[in-house]
């Protein structure tokens, strides 16, 4: 190492590897993105395995998708990635050096188990005589003193808990050592100090939940049925201590009524934690909805419901209308136990100003997010500034940038946020770090090793069937054991079994093992949807030496257990039917071969606002050309009139500098007054036609980044456009900047929130308006301290650190009046002034306000261009007209169609710094494609049987991708010909073809017919 070090010193080369500290979802996403774009990754995790808090969650909001199932594929990819080294159970001690050339000192803690030898057979844990409480399950059940945190853990290596191990505490036992066949137990193993060279460091240390004991009045730790929200996640989880059956801790009985208390350890100045933890309202809503499925009453006590993310408000409304979750706007002073039956009494203030007392069987405390102490300690050690609450301080606009060059940050260690924002920020940090090291791309990565494929063409089908429990998602309804037994009786089924999570890393090893041991040549997994999980299993087959197209997935979750919850017996029968259909199809599966083709390493960026500019610059920083298309005459978009943020940044100035950088960057070609009129091709190889000031121009590119932006809604309500003193929040911001003299004359300013947001037809929160109103009110107060400001609101949603500005606004005497959607303020013109009456929902009385200016916090709408683009690009919009990502948690920056990415306001309302982070993240997702020279084309494409083709052209008409065309072939005959790289395998031409000449590989008629026959 020393010699290599000197060598590097002389040449001043950057090191093509990146260290990520923290193996939660943010760290995992960052690691995958970096490793997939051509860099070596070391993922350091202090705990024995990665996965973080997300691995402990049952489901995730706002889709109520199973958390383990979403994380599973990512963990599998992580564990098997040739360019990722996982250093679990390892602490970071120090960091030296400079950006591009750091040296990191690590301590690999001794597990007392040799990870090379441990095959995680579990015999040691089975026979270990010491039982201790299990921290992964928040001490709700027991584990042994030699353990893996959870069965799907990565890396799957046992660790001895030295604090409890009988040998380490009393000097005798050694049972595990005697029983371990692989001689993996190594009591004398010592901590090892390791030094790593790395080009950049990303901190993703996560958080720890607030210690609910600090709020002693809620009785956590004293009354058994008071639990924290994370404990409740484990209670809900099928893989948790109670197998997903909701039960009381005291007596194991099913509770009838459960209460949630919000803001425990958040929004509490009294405890020095004035920030909002940003996720608790939504996780409580999620937990309450799941609880209602068990027919248990759910009540949430809260201050404001903060449903500020995409899809959150609809989720919240659904929890009330469909799930009957009860919400009570009152904080709780204390929880009183009833020792006779361990119930809990709560009293709260009703809207009618009375105190009401209710009894609950369980109370869940929605605990806030606190900085992870070890992450905090590390940041201090390596000179990263912390904010006043102990989170990593970062640049207000470029939130992944810390105070130390070359060290980036993402996830909750930067500030409280949900999984989606953590994942986006992870990709953004990855973009920053890889841009720094762009020259060293590919220098330390190994080409993937693909085993030789077994030729199975002469073999009889030998099918292996794996039926997944999916925690309790499937097994809670369907008798999976019976389905597996049944599968064993079907023709050509050589092997059948059932497993907890088919998608977990250990299970992939099991599948590979079974392929080998039983000579399988077809694999059927009965689990969930191919949309999210097929690539994972196909890869497992590939690694086992089977052609990946010999895989079949039967969806017994979405199509069975989820929709037939009330009829378990029939659901089991249907499960068998689905498996039988798939077995008959699997018998007919044929190997398919993918072709690869060259990638055009250029990105097309649509939209020249903050998102598009950032994305284009990000792509170019990594050495790839970008084409930036802007509809108007000017770059910069909405950010040009964002003059300041609540925390002192200046997006307007930032965007001007960004425009200059973009215009000076030779790799970026800017087209103004330009629109994309058509696009053909597919991921890696697109051809688009642009209309440049009416002139057509054709460009080629490998990926598309959509950043078509959004706009402020022009209200039709509250006399906007009819009275000169009614303006929007953005107009007010411009007024504060450009008309200071007029601002100083203002005496009474009123603001109305949620104008055009949170309405039945626009059921979403515009996310930024509460903070904008507060920011502008504070600005007004600083210019004109005597102005009286009244803000009429429905919920104040100043999430995260923004809460401190809300408190500041309150302290500055800005008045807040809460109204209900059904009782909106009424505005009347009174000459040059306005008179507003509002029914204050808290006081339950009407309030009369006079104003010489009324400011409307108008919603954010997607730009008009979005609708037009959706047709040109064939991309989906959500119910509100924003572009829809592939998956809100798993893939928030990608479209479902390969090669398309999204960012900025076109995806949903967000702040400038969130747009920047998202744009960088989306750019990195695109760079993962661009950084490769070749791309593998889909094997599942259309084929034309030349004998049956009449060259009628129906297929050509039907194809949206211009992938099939009637051409002259050998002998002068005309026939439909498929361009393999363009074909997406959608099947449109098959349906159009009158003779059956066109057939889709992998969905051939006999394969489908076999399924249909078996279904009847």
């Amino acid at each position, binding site marked *: 190492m020393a010699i290599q070090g000197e060598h590097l010193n002389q040449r001043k080369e950057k090191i093509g590897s990146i260290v990520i500290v923290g193996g939660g979802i943010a760290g995992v996403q960052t690691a995958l993105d970096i490793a997939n774009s051509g860099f070596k990754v070391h993922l350091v995790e202090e705990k024995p395995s990665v996965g973080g808090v997300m691995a402990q969650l049952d489901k995730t909001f706002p889709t109520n998708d199973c958390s383990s199932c979403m994380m599973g594929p990512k963990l599998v990819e992580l564990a098997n990635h040739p360019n990722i080294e996982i250093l679990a159970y390892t602490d970071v001690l120090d960091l030296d050096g400079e950006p591009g050339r750091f040296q990191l000192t690590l301590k690999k803690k001794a597990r007392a188990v040799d990870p090379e030898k441990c095959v995680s057979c579990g015999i040691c844990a089975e026979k270990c005589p010491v039982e201790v409480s299990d921290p992964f399950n928040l001490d709700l059940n027991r584990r042994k003193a030699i353990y893996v945190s959870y069965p799907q853990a990565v890396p799957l290596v046992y660790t001895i808990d030295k604090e409890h191990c009988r040998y380490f505490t009393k000097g005798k036992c050694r049972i595990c050592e005697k029983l371990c066949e692989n001689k993996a137990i190594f009591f004398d193993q010592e901590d090892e100090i390791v030094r790593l060279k790395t080009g950049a460091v990303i901190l993703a240390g996560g958080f720890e939940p607030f210690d609910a004991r600090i709020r*002693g*009045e809620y009785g956590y730790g004293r009354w058994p049925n008071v639990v924290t929200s994370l404990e409740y996640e484990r209670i809900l989880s099928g893989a948790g201590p109670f197998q997903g059956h909701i039960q009381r801790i005291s007596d194991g009985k099913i509770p009838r009524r459960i209460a949630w208390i919000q*803001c425990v350890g958040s*929004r*509490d*100045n*009294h*405890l020095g934690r*004035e920030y909002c933890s940003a996720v608790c309202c939504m996780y409580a809503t999620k937990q309450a909805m799941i609880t209602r499925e068990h027919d248990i009453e759910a009540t949430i006590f809260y*201050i*404001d419901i903060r449903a500020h993310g995409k899809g959150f408000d609809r989720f919240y409304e659904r929890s009330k209308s469909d799930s009957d979750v009860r919400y009570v*706007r*009152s*904080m*709780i*002073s*204390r929880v*009183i136990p009833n020792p006779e039956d361990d119930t809990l009494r709560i*009293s*709260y*203030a009703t809207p009618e*100003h*009375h*105190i009401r007392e209710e009894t609950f069987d369980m109370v869940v405390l929605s605990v806030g997010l606190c900085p992870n102490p070890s992450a905090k300690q590390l940041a201090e050690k390596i000179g990263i500034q912390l904010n006043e609450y102990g989170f990593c301080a970062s640049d207000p606009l470029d939130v992944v940038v810390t105070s130390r060059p070359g060290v980036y940050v993402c996830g909750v260690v930067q500030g409280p946020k949900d999984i989606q924002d953590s994942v986006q920020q992870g990709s953004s940090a990855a973009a920053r770090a890889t841009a720094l090291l762009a020259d060293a791309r590919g220098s330390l990565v190994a080409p993937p090793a693909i085993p030789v494929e077994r030729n199975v063409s002469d073999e009889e089908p030998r099918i292996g069937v794996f039926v997944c429990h999916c925690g309790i998602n499937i097994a809670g309804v369907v008798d999976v054991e019976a389905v597996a037994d049944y599968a064993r009786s079907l023709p050509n089924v050589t092997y059948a079994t059932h497993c907890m999570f088919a998608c977990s890393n250990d299970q992939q090893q099991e599948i590979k093992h079974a392929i080998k041991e039983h000579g399988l040549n077809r694999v059927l997994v009965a689990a969930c949807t191919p949309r999210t999980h097929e690539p994972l299993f196909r890869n497992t087959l590939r690694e086992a030496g089977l052609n990946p197209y010999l895989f079949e997935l039967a969806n017994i979750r979405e199509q069975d257990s989820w929709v037939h919850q009330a009829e378990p017996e029939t659901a089991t029968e249907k499960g068998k039917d689905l498996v039988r259909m798939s077995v008959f199809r699997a018998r007919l599966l044929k190997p398919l071969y993918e072709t690869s083709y060259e990638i055009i390493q250029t990105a097309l960026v649509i939209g020249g606002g903050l998102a598009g500019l950032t994305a284009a610059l990000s792509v170019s920083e990594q050495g790839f050309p970008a084409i930036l298309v802007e509809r108007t005459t000017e770059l910069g978009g909405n950010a040009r009139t964002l003059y300041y943020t609540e925390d002192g940044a200046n997006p307007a100035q930032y965007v001007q500098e960004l425009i200059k950088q973009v215009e000076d960057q030779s790799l970026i070609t800017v087209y103004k007054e330009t629109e994309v009129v058509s696009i053909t091709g597919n991921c890696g190889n697109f051809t688009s036609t642009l209309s440049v000031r009416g002139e057509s121009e054709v460009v080629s590119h490998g990926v598309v980044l959509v950043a078509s932006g959004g706009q402020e809604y022009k209200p039709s309500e509250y006399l906007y456009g009819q009275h000169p003193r009614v303006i929007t929040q953005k107009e007010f911001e411009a007024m504060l900047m450009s008309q200071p003299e007029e601002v100083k004359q203002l005496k009474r300013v009123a603001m109305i929130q949620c104008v055009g947001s949170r309405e039945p037809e626009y059921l979403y929160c515009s996310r930024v308006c509460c903070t904008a109103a507060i920011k502008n009110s504070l600005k007004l107060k600083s210019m004109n301290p005597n102005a009286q400001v009244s803000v009429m609101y429905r919920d*104040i949603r100043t999430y995260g650190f923004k809460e401190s500005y*809300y*408190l500041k606004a*309150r*302290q*500055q*005497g*800005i*008045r*807040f009046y*809460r109204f209900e959607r059904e009782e909106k303020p009424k505005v009347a013109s009174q000459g040059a002034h306005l008179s507003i009456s509002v029914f*204050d929902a*808290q*006081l339950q009385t009407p*309030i009369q306000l006079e104003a010489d200016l009324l400011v409307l916090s108008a919603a954010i709408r997607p730009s008009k261009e979005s609708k037009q683009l959706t047709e040109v690009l064939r991309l989906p919009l959500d119910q509100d007209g924003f572009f829809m990502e592939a998956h809100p948690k798993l893939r928030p920056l990608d479209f479902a169609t390969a090669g398309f990415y999204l960012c900025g306001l076109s995806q949903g309302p967000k702040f400038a710094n969130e747009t920047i982070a998202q744009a960088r993240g989306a750019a990195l997702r695109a760079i993962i494609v661009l950084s490769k020279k070749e791309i593998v084309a889909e094997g599942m494409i259309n084929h034309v049987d030349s004998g049956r083709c009449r060259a009628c052209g129906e297929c050509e008409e039907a194809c949206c991708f211009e992938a099939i065309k009637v051409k002259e072939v050998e002998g002068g005959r005309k026939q439909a010909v498929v361009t393999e790289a363009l074909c997406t395998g959608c099947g449109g031409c098959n349906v159009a073809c009158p003779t059956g000449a066109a057939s889709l590989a992998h969905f051939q008629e006999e394969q489908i017919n076999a399924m249909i026959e078996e279904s009847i």
Partner: protein
Amino acid sequence: MQLTRKQTDSCIECGECTGSCPISRELSGFSPRQIIKRAMIEPDGSLLHGREIWACLSCAHCSERCPADIDFPEFIRSHREEARKAGNSPHESHHGILQAIASLQTRNIKQQRTGWAEKVGAFHDTGEYFYFVGCLPYFDVTFRYLNLFPLETAQSVLILLNKMGVEPVISNHERCCGHDALWSGNEAVFRKLASWNVEVIKSSGAKTVLFSCPEGYFTFKNYYRKYFGDLPFEVVHMTEFLARELPGAELTFEPSSDAAITYHDPCRLGRCSGIYEPPRQLFQFLPETQFVEMERSRENALCCGTSAWMECSSCSKAMQMERLQEAAQTGARTLITACPKCQIHLTCAQSGTDMDLKVRDIYTYLLKRLSGDETHSK
């Protein structure tokens, strides 16, 4: 001095105060959350004219919990002066005699405040320590009907101090600390009383002032400082002093036949001053004594039901009964407190019931358990 508008403005309307408030439980419609909001909208409105302003016990349950750190008791206190000016006065209990005694003390009257001490111990006119006796001599003559002798508290303190080698100043010129005047909107009375006291203590040359009464301690520590700046003496509560000095004082305590004991935290000592540990430390000196906590203790302790000798009502009685029952539920037979008013209120509530808790003052109880003490056993 007054709690500023800005402080109450920071209210986020979460309602935790109302849920915490013992009055809200008993008095339907009383809601600190509403009171703050109303006062913001109409500063001269219903707060100044309604009964709510006097109903607040200033027990600090709400401010202890408030996530926005609003000092609701102080907010109420600061408006009481104005309420009085607007002709809105509180109902004074005990026919106003205790308010009359306090206001008499603002004049240049002749008091007989030290007679009780001459019988039991040594004290001086000047010296290092000043024992601030407070209103105990006046309570002693007022609450005989409850079979209470509040001066026993003062006598016990003096005996304990003497045994520890301290012969404090006890002054015949001392005045009421002004706590009740301050909390019932009589700032002028408070100012006069307070400046008397500061002068009396200064002239004694004392460097440390010891308080057995939590209200005196709290008022000196917070409000004297606010009105008169830094004081030339240290303010120490007797429980703090004893917890610190007893271990080195070679005093021993005797076992007793008493069953378990429990302790009621007075609002002014607990939530308002943060003194929870010292009284509990004192119980550890008592051999073979089982100390049990009530369900609600320390910052959660229930208030004794009235303050500043006003607005005593069925609501107060309900709270007191709740507290007594909570004490009884612990199995303890002796309920100890460190505040003469708590002792008076809880004793009053118990009279006429068939409950038989011994409601004791902490100093008298300690002295009773002191080894070799015959001077004070009754």
